[in-house]
């Protein structure tokens, strides 16, 4: 094993174990807190895949934004009525079927895809230049549509605020 494989397994274990805590913890606070480490682990794996910009985006948006919202939400709801909010197992059978289908799909994709494997050191420096150029040329339409999606979300948020 070289250094990068060891680092990969560290991040992979971090991601999987903390994801496990998110699912299995009975205390919603610890679930939310563990999700923080899941997102961070995923960011580390992106770095190992040389997707530096995606890794930073993962940190900026998921860890720095969405997790704050989640933790605020948890803080708003727990202990309000002095009742510990815990997670329960509901509808075990349908859940098992859905999980089985999804994991079968994932495994089949994993096996059937021809993964392009490159030596990690030989890959070029950064992806952000290409992302920038492609956003303004080939993928201009999705880029502008993204702004409209954001606009709609913003209007929704403003609408919610007005009601309160």
């Amino acid at each position, binding site marked *: 094993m070289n*250094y*990068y494989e060891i*680092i990969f397994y560290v991040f992979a274990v971090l991601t999987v174990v903390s994801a496990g805590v998110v699912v299995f913890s009975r205390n919603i606070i610890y679930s939310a807190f563990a999700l923080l480490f899941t997102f961070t682990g995923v960011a580390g794996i992106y*770095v*190992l895949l*040389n997707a530096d*910009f995606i890794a930073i*985006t993962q940190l*900026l*948006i998921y860890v*720095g*934004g*969405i997790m*704050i*919202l989640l933790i*605020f*939400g948890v*803080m*708003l709801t*727990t*202990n*309000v009525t*002095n009742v510990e909010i815990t997670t329960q197992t509901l509808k075990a059978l349908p859940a098992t079927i859905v999980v089985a289908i999804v994991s079968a799909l994932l495994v089949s994709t994993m096996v059937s895809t021809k993964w392009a494997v490159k030596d*990690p*050191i030989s*890959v070029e*420096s950064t992806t*952000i*230049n290409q*992302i*920038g*150029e492609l*956003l*303004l040329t080939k993928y*201009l339409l999705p*880029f*502008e549509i*993204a*702004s*409209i999606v*954001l*606009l709609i*979300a*913003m*209007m929704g*948020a*403003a*609408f*919610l*605020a*007005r009601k*309160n």
Partner: protein
Amino acid sequence: MLNNYIPILILMLFAIAFAIVCVFLSKFIGPKNPNPVKLSTYESGMEPVGTARQRFSVKYYMAAMLFILFDIEIVFLYPWAVAYRKFIPNTVYYALIEMSVFIAILLVGYIYMIRKGALNWD
């Protein structure tokens, strides 16, 4: 170059080690005589009333929500800003207009938000 990230990883390990050592050092060195009054919640010398974990203003939640939306917008601006100079001789005005349209659409949402008072804190 992935090798550039190795020093960051080492620094992170150093920082984690430093934090752990500091926290546990005081656990071992400092005195330990807890009593119920010392361990009670501080409330300016009064008996604590109820729990601290009560409902708080939804405004904070709103701020976090709006933050995510603008954060995503800003993330789109970085690749554009990096690539901007590559368009300089011929197509630079296209690049400028494309981004201006993106910002203008979001500005509409921003103005709507201010009009609806989503950002009023008083």
